[in-house]
């Protein structure tokens, strides 16, 4: 069984949580809440902490990695059926990452390039990483996060140029509570991508200490998403942020520090690319590993080839353009993520709690019974 260090798992979780919101959350929250978008991130602290607790509870009370733990707690038949659904839910995140990457490149960096070529360029390294194994993938992700995350944050801070106007965050009052609820729900749905910890946690050296790393990841996610949402608003205002395709990229494009540091959008691209590779590789691994668990296969790696083709073709088939991608990111995927990655694990908590309690009761009855 492959082993991950705690820092590797930390990096994997950070990349699964932070990459997609870094690219798209500013626009989506500006569309829903205008200048109050950052409040939705603060509002998601409580749901996020609840999710961390749920995942930690499931991890510490299960002997098998997800989705094997579904069979352990819900029975083999129901466990396999729900596990089968999860294969496709994880696969959907793979496709979503691919589409987002391809559209980011097509709209900003290489307009006019065939989408199939772009997809091949991002699928090939992830394919090789997965065929090599989880440990190699985790090492690459560790390197990527340790180098790219600080750079990504630095690029955001460079966006605070002379045109920055903090009053664009005002007025603080006069916001729609329903819109705030919608924003909190959206941010929470992307926090639920932390569900990969249920699959990867058991590979860790010290699963009992995982809560610290999960909390650290959640804290860093809050910080980076807060920065990624606030900085475009103070730089461009909420209206302009909501109509730009990728506001963060425009921040990098407009950056000019003392007429010395400028034209740094290529650095932004070189930060986003490995980030997308990481989230793709991680969810692709979880897809194949889930299929291995559900079908009882000997090795997950035999499925990497067929799923590579499926992912590449589905990325072109499922989402025709960036307009529909944003509708899906904002209104369809959050439903899928919340139901499968948050509500269903939350439903398992009372099931496990009842099972444990029943076991404790029967143990205490056995002890209390007089010896024959």
């Amino acid at each position, binding site marked *: 069984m492959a082993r991950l260090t705690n820092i590797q798992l930390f990096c994997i979780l950070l990349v699964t949580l932070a990459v997609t919101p870094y690219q798209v959350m500013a626009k989506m929250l500006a569309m829903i809440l205008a200048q109050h978008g950052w409040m939705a991130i603060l509002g998601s602290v409580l749901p996020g902490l609840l999710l961390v607790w749920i995942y930690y509870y499931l991890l510490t009370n299960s002997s098998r990695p997800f989705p094997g733990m579904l069979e352990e707690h819900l029975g083999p038949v129901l466990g396999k059926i729900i596990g089968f659904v999860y294969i496709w839910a994880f696969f959907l995140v793979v496709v979503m990452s691919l589409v987002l990457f391809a559209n980011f490149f097509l709209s900003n960096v290489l307009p006019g390039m065939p989408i199939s070529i772009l997809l091949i360029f991002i699928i090939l390294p992830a394919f090789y990483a997965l065929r090599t194994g989880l440990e190699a993938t985790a090492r690459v992700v560790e390197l990527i996060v340790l180098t790219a995350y600080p750079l990504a944050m630095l690029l955001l801070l460079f966006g605070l140029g002379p045109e920055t106007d903090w009053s664009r965050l005002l007025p603080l009052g006069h916001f729609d509570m329903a819109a705030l609820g919608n924003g909190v729900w959206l941010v929470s749905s992307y926090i639920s991508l932390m569900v990969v910890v249920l699959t990867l946690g058991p590979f860790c050296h010290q699963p009992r200490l995982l809560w610290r790393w999960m909390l650290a990841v959640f804290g860093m996610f809050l910080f980076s998403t807060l920065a990624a949402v606030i900085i475009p608003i103070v730089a461009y205002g909420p209206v302009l942020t909501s109509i730009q395709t990728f506001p963060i990229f425009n921040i990098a494009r407009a950056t000019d520090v003392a007429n010395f540091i400028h034209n740094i959008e290529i650095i932004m691209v070189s930060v986003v690319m490995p980030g997308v590779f990481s989230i793709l590789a991680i969810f692709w691994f979880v897809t194949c590993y889930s299929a291995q668990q559900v079908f009882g296969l*000997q090795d997950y790696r035999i499925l990497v080839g*067929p799923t590579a*083709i499926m992912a590449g*073709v589905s990325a072109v088939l499922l989402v025709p353009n960036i307009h529909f991608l944003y*509708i899906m990111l904002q209104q*369809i995927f959050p439903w899928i993520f919340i139901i499968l990655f948050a509500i269903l694990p939350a439903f398992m908590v009372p099931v496990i709690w009842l099972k444990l309690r029943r076991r404790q009761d029967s143990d205490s009855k056995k002890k209390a019974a007089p010896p024959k």
Partner: protein
Amino acid sequence: MFTALFFLLVALLVAIDVPDLRRQKLNKDLAVYTIFMLAAIYLAMVQFYHWPFFNPLLMAAMRMQSP
């Protein structure tokens, strides 16, 4: 041309994966591999030849888009 390249890729993947599975007599693994590969080929054919394809995500997105 693109179809030929695609089937060359499929043949390459099959040549890498299948002999090991057959040597170890992992019949269940081979069956699952075949089903996934057939699904991949079907999706590719849908894309190449514009076969009809039910896309629930796109249908939901079209309903949700503002007029």
